[in-house]
């Protein structure tokens, strides 16, 4: 059968891009001022850390787990970045590497003891929050100059946040979706028995995925502090839900193995833009939360339509 535009597989990957484009179009229409370098940069620079957190969550979802601690983990990283990394760079780097190692160890623990990831990560979310409060009891700290310089860097023609999202999406896409290792990593979530029988170590894949999630979580926290210039122990708690919603909006599934890095990033950007659109429309704050939910439901409804189409063809 020829692959037409109506092929569900293509449609499936088109839905996130399409909803992103429609939303962006609506924003340009409502507030023409946003249609500029300055406008895009402002609207999307807080979306960039969410995109990184979403990629981190995506790695966990790939191995059929769920991470409920990514928000507090990003907050902790933000606190470390705004204090240790700024005052004693060596200590800061060690602490951040330690964070990634802790994530990898969590992956090993979950696999070896066969624990439910939801429970372990929920517990860890309190540990991360506690560490963040110990490190920064009251809001403060400041971003290292090189970091805020990097994030605020004004690229010619394309805003930094768009370029960074694009590069991030492409790198993760090729590593996870196009490489042989990537196929094994995804397979360990989609069909773990098959991967194990073929001689791959599930422990190794799980540790790798958790370490990658830790790495992208660290990136997210650092970029966030670069943008806000200082930290707060509760700065990113919302990221847990944002990141899960972003992956699902972008075409991922809770069942493991089925994810789309580019879709996930588009999902994260879509989530960020929904808030902007609603505030440009001057919808009263009481209604904004509801309206945000309705937009998400519409996008997900489109997805399930595509899924049904897929089933019918199969």
């Amino acid at each position: 059968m020829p692959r037409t535009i109506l092929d569900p597989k293509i449609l499936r990957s088109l839905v996130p891009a399409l909803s992103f484009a429609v939303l962006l179009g609506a924003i340009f229409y409502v507030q023409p001022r946003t249609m500029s370098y300055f406008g895009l940069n402002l609207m999307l620079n807080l979306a960039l850390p969410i995109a990184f957190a979403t990629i981190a969550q995506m790695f966990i979802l790939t191995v059929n787990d769920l991470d409920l601690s990514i928000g507090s983990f990003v907050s902790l990283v933000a606190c470390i970045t705004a204090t240790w990394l700024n005052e004693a760079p060596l200590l800061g780097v060690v602490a951040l590497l330690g964070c990634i190692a802790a994530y990898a160890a969590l992956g090993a623990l979950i696999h070896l003891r066969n624990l439910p990831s939801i429970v372990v990560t929920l517990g860890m979310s309190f540990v991360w929050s506690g560490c963040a409060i110990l490190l920064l009891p009251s809001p403060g700290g400041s971003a290292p100059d090189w970091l805020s310089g990097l994030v605020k860097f004004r690229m010619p023609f394309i805003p930094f946040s768009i370029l960074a999202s694009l590069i991030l999406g492409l790198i993760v896409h090729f590593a996870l979706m196009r490489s042989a290792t990537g196929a094994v990593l995804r397979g360990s979530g989609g069909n773990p028995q098959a991967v194990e029988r073929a001689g791959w170590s599930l422990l190794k894949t799980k540790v790798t995925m958790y370490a990658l999630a830790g790495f992208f979580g660290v990136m997210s926290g650092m970029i966030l502090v670069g943008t806000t210039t200082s930290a707060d122990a509760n700065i990113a708690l919302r990221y847990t839900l944002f990141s899960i919603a972003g992956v699902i909006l972008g075409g991922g599934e809770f069942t493991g193995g089925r994810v789309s890095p580019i879709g996930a990033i588009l999902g994260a950007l879509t989530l960020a833009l929904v808030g902007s659109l609603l505030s440009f429309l001057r919808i009263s704050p009481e209604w904004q939360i509801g309206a945000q939910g309705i937009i998400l439901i519409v996008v997900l409804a489109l997805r399930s339509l595509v899924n049904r189409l897929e089933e019918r063809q199969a």
Partner: protein
Amino acid sequence: MVRTKLICLAGALALSAAMPAFAQDADTSDKNVALSNNYAGNSWRQAMIKSWQEATAKAVEDGVVASADANTTAENSATEQAAQLQNMILQGYDAIVLNAASPTALNGAVKEACDAGITVVSFDATVTEECAWRIAVDFKKMGVDQIDYLAERYPDGGPLLEIRGLPGTSVDEQIHAGILEGIEKHPQFEIAREVQGDWTQTVAQKSVASVLPSLPDVVGVVTQGGDGYGAARAFEAAGREVPTIIMGNRSDELQWWKEQKDENGYETFSQSIAPGVSTLGFWVAQQILAGADVPKDLQVPTLRIDQDGLDQGLEMTPEGGVTNKEYTREEAQELISSAK
């Protein structure tokens, strides 16, 4: 566009430096002001938003400004408020009046707003970014004032009971520090006992009741607001004479005081920050837009009710709420000139 705005601003600044006396009369009828608020979940914040809406609706009607929208984020989160601020920059507001989710985490967005030529005025929960104006609350003074008042009432001094607020918060620390400073100034007083009240009547009543059996006769009770009525109830329930309890402008506190005043001439004073401080933020922003030379750090005046003003204070207090007051342009100008 941004650049022209900056030049305009620079021009306005130069102008205001050149003729400060006339500058604040400049026309602001084409200016758009926005309120950025992070939380609307308690009665104080709701009264704050309501005051803003009422005062600014009138200002818009009178042609003082073109618009003054109120915005609240869904959740009390710094990143969400930062995104809200960035959207406001794009909406082309001339001034943003801000009650911040975090003193520091919004600095990046606030700086971006300043760079775009927008006047940012933070009040109540202020931000540390230097380009923004701050209308801060002097909690320390609220502590010192209590001891000053008691020193006038009881020149001989005596033991005091102190009711603290929520532990670990900066407000509690600062009021407590103010009380200690007051006692240093008036060494005839001493804190006989310290209990935790969490700014809540029921908590205060329970903790005061638990120390009463072993408490010596105190002349006064120093408080942080929201705890005075509970303390009074505890003294009454134990059948002890009620000492002078400093009140915090809550309606139950004022009502109790009024009853006692009518019955036996009970005397005290009451103080707190009025939720209408949002309107002070609005007028300060308007003054800055009009070209007035405004110092970056201003202090919110506390709303103080003395014996004579009790009836008037009760009128200004909604049932179950806190005494409120909407500030006027003249009051904002007065505050600005007194801070210079």
